[in-house]
């Protein structure tokens, strides 16, 4: 049995001996190196570029600018939602960091030196950095023209807009919002913000491009979406897809920053221009400028009745997608429709806006926008509960979505263990005792340090629609290869997907090998992201393995003269269930089929989700997501009231994963996602000065280290099986990212009575909030904007 076993990662030994294959370690013969010159102005027209001094430096092969690209018959623009991002800046720059020119040289050092010898003259244009200013009618326009890409089914309905920085406006209308607010006894309105942040996988973006003897483009890239890279690079080069080959070995982390095309189009075009292989490896400083997490401004208005029911919720979410949309429009829509929270609310009204600015581009970041939303709705749940004198746990339980209830999108919710997640938080935090005794003992103070607890839950819809194809080949000796374009970026997909194939074929895990993505060989897969691989690719592999099994059974049923449903496959033999003495080995079946001890059995499957596009005016759909997955976080914090510093004493992460194929890996995903969010909650923030990111290095931007860990932590698996999941499995990569920020903010409120609505909760911000609250208490103004209506 391979299923449910905490098998070690198949590549474990290579990871402790430093032998794992990463693109960063790869070279190809004759390879040149690339360095990028980036824009120093946030918004401007390129008036001239003088590259003559740079090209004279010995060892420099060529300096390429956007202007040079015009000599080639290629498409200059790429992108997953809009093709708005140029291979190199074409006439105009849109942020500090926009690639303007590329130096190709014999060594990294020479290329880096030569970058300094390129002179660029800009005519600066008025920039816009504030996302709310950018929505105004008189705002400077970042993109004069918007080009929908049409690569993905869910983004096909995007319409070109001009004269506005709003590149997508998603609307959800459920029930009657005005009537809902009329029915409410109390109305709460709060605005929550999150800053831009960065992923910082330990391995930077890196790619090698080489044109081979058949004039095909070969790319080795540290990327989470090889199938998309193939089609998009093919689009840029005007090649057929089969002339582009993308190979991905192990990744040194991804977290969303290595999705879609990042540096691959540029690397490929440069190889085409110099007709030699080129390698482009970004520095960490460049990683900061390549992709960020969306900064958001979320205003939430909620109506509740005196008996504890939410009757209306209005959400206005604004996403700063920066200078290029990247996947921002999908985040705006797919996370946008979850903005009202995992609650049964009859009247919901959501406006979600994806907005260009002259900041660095923003895109997918572990959680895909959901953490920014949970931060707001779970903070407000506690604001309401506190104001109304309700237990925040009971307040959540009273409206949480359970089996068969209708989500605000109109979809009926199934296989979502939100109530179980809440129960686990309740028991693991000893919440009832804690809440009951809040005023006499459970919020403790020792010296100047106060301890208190908080919790939050969140719900995400998996990316739908999407596609995963898989091939499973059984060789004559009974060993198996699985061909899948899922990228193992550390989550352990090679191990888990192999477990699924092994389980289906009754084989020990070590008989199965998972082939790394190679678009010449491994079938199309949408992306490795969105907590989707176990479900989508797992399904494809399970069914492809079933296809192999059926072929074995076909031979065996004839051999034993029984129906194939009378057969079972175990221990590398096919047995007749009622007469186990009748058995035949896999090897003998293959020998029987091919009349020689050679050949292979090939199984295949393409798993496609069912989906109903949301109505463009109301956002309603009966089938908007193939599965939903909830997570919850409970924390106990200790806050120092003299310094404002928050320490996490205890953290509990709960995730409903459907079925844990590899429980250890699931625990690691939960813990890893939660620790990553501690950084987001407490200190991570990209700081800008007139469009320039001023902390774009690991010396100025801190990420969680050993010193930031909770003193105690726990990860709890809930298994509410999904009928369409492989063995009931859903996904887990993002689950523990949802609730960390509001859980900490809620604990902080419970400790000090201060409510912070802007992230991160730095000591400075906490201290300021304490001072503000002292002032407010003097003038008896407290908390959020609350409208208390007259008695009814």
């Amino acid at each position, binding site marked *: 049995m391979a299923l449910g076993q905490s098998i070690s990662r198949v590549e474990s030994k290579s990871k402790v001996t430093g032998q794992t294959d990463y693109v960063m370690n790869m070279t190809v013969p004759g390879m040149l190196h690339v360095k990028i010159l980036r824009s120093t102005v946030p918004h401007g027209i390129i008036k001239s570029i003088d590259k003559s001094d740079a090209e004279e430096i010995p060892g420099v092969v060529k300096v390429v600018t956007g202007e040079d690209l015009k000599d080639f018959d290629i498409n200059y623009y790429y992108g997953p939602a809009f093709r708005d991002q140029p291979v190199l800046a074409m006439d105009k720059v849109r942020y500090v960091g926009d690639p303007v020119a590329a130096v190709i040289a014999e060594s990294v050092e020479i290329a880096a030196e030569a970058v300094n010898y390129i002179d660029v003259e800009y005519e600066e244009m008025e920039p816009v950095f504030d996302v709310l200013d950018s929505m105004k009618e008189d705002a400077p326009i970042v993109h004069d023209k918007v080009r929908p890409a049409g690569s993905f089914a869910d983004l096909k309905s995007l319409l070109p807009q001009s004269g506005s920085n709003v590149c997508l406006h998603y609307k959800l209308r459920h029930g009657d919002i005005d009537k809902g607010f009329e029915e409410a006894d109390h109305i709460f309105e709060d605005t929550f913000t999150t800053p831009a942040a960065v992923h910082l996988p330990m391995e930077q973006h890196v790619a090698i491009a080489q044109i081979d003897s058949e004039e095909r483009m070969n790319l080795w890239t540290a990327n989470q979406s090889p199938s998309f890279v193939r089609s998009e690079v093919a689009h840029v080069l005007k090649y057929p897809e089969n002339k582009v080959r993308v190979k991905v070995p192990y990744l040194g982390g991804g977290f969303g920053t290595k999705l879609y095309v990042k540096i691959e189009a540029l690397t490929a075009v440069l190889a085409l221009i110099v007709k030699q292989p080129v390698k482009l490896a970004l520095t960490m400083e460049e990683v900061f400028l390549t992709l960020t997490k969306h900064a958001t401004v979320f205003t939430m208005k909620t109506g509740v009745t005196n008996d504890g029911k939410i009757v209306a919720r209005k959400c206005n979410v604004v996403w700063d997608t920066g200078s290029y949309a990247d996947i921002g429009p999908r985040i705006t829509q797919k996370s946008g429709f979850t903005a009202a929270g995992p609650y049964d609310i009859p009247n919901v009204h959501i406006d979600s806006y994806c907005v260009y600015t002259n900041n660095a581009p923003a895109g997918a970041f572990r959680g895909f926008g959901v953490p920014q939303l949970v931060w707001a709705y779970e903070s407000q749940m506690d604001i309401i509960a506190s104001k109304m004198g309700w237990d925040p746990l009971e307040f959540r339980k009273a409206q949480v979505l359970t089996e068969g209830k209708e989500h605000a999108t109109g979809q009926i919710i199934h296989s979502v263990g939100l109530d179980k997640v809440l129960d686990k938080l309740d028991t693991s935090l000893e919440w009832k005792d804690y809440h009951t005794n809040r005023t006499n003992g459970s919020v403790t103070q020792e010296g100047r340090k106060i301890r208190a607890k908080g919790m939050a839950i969140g719900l995400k819809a998996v990316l739908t629609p999407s596609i995963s194809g898989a091939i499973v080949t059984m060789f004559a000796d009974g060993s198996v290869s699985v061909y899948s374009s899922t990228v193992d970026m*550390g989550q352990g997909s090679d191990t888990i997907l192999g477990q699924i194939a092994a389980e289906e074929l009754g084989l020990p895990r070590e008989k199965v090998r998972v082939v790394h993505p190679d678009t010449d060989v491994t079938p199309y897969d949408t992306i490795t992201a969105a907590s989707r691989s176990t479900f989508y690719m797992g399904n494809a592999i399970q069914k492809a393995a079933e296809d192999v099994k059926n072929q074995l059974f076909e031979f065996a049923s004839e051999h034993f003269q029984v129906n194939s449903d009378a057969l079972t496959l175990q221990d590398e033999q096919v047995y007749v269930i009622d007469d186990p003495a009748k058995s035949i080995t896999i090897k003998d079946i293959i020998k029987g089929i091919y009349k020689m001890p050679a050949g292979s059995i090939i199984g295949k499957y393409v798993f496609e989700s069912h989906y109903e596009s949301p109505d463009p005016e109301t956002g309603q759909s009966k089938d908007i997501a193939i599965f939903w997955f909830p997570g919850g976080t409970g924390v106990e914090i200790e806050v120092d009231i003299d310094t404002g510093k928050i320490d996490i004493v205890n953290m509990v992460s709960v995730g409903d994963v459907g079925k844990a194929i590899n429980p250890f890996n699931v625990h690691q995903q939960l813990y890893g996602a939660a620790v990553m969010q501690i950084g987001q909650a407490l200190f991570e923030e990209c700081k800008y000065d007139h469009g320039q990111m001023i902390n774009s290095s690991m010396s100025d931007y801190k990420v969680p280290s050993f010193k930031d860990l909770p003193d105690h932590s726990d990860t709890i698996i809930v298994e509410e099986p999904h009928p369409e999941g492989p063995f009931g499995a859903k996904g887990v990569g993002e689950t523990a990212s949802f609730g960390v920020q509001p859980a900490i903010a809620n604990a902080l409120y419970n400790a000090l009575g201060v409510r912070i609505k802007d992230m991160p909760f730095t000591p400075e911000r906490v201290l300021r909030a304490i001072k503000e609250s002292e002032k407010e208490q003097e003038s008896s103004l407290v908390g959020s904007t609350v409208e208390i209506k007259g008695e009814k």
Partner: protein
Amino acid sequence: MKKQVNFILNGKSVSAEVAPHETLLDLLRNDFGLGGAKETCGLGLCGVCTIIVSGVPVSGCLHFASSIDGEEILTIEGMETEEGLHPVQEAFLNNKAFQCGYCTPGMILMAKKLLEENANPSVEEIKDYMAGNICRCASYGQIIEAINEASKLLQQEKAGLNA
């Protein structure tokens, strides 16, 4: 203007011609094909490029190659011997103390040095000592467990040798 340096690399005498600006990390990666240590932050702050120079862990991205003449260099590639994995590697393997594995070589070398200085560290001591090694996947919990186990393995090994 290159300079010749002679040094011991993972137990073998080697020599190389190095440029004044060349880092130890670049030398090991480019001239000796050792890919375990990698440049991540480029500032000596993340621990991914950790290399041990005559018993002292250094950031390979900041350490000049020209300074290693006569030194003994240990990289992750030199940890496994004919007898098998080093006990620290063994403990990382047993505790599954990694996800993407990019930071793992640096973690292992740093943990080895910690246990040489402090055979039986407390969790707080581990956190203090290892604070300069970043794991963005956050396998920190398992790394602490691995260091605890390595501490036991090394002490058993030592007791075995003394017996």
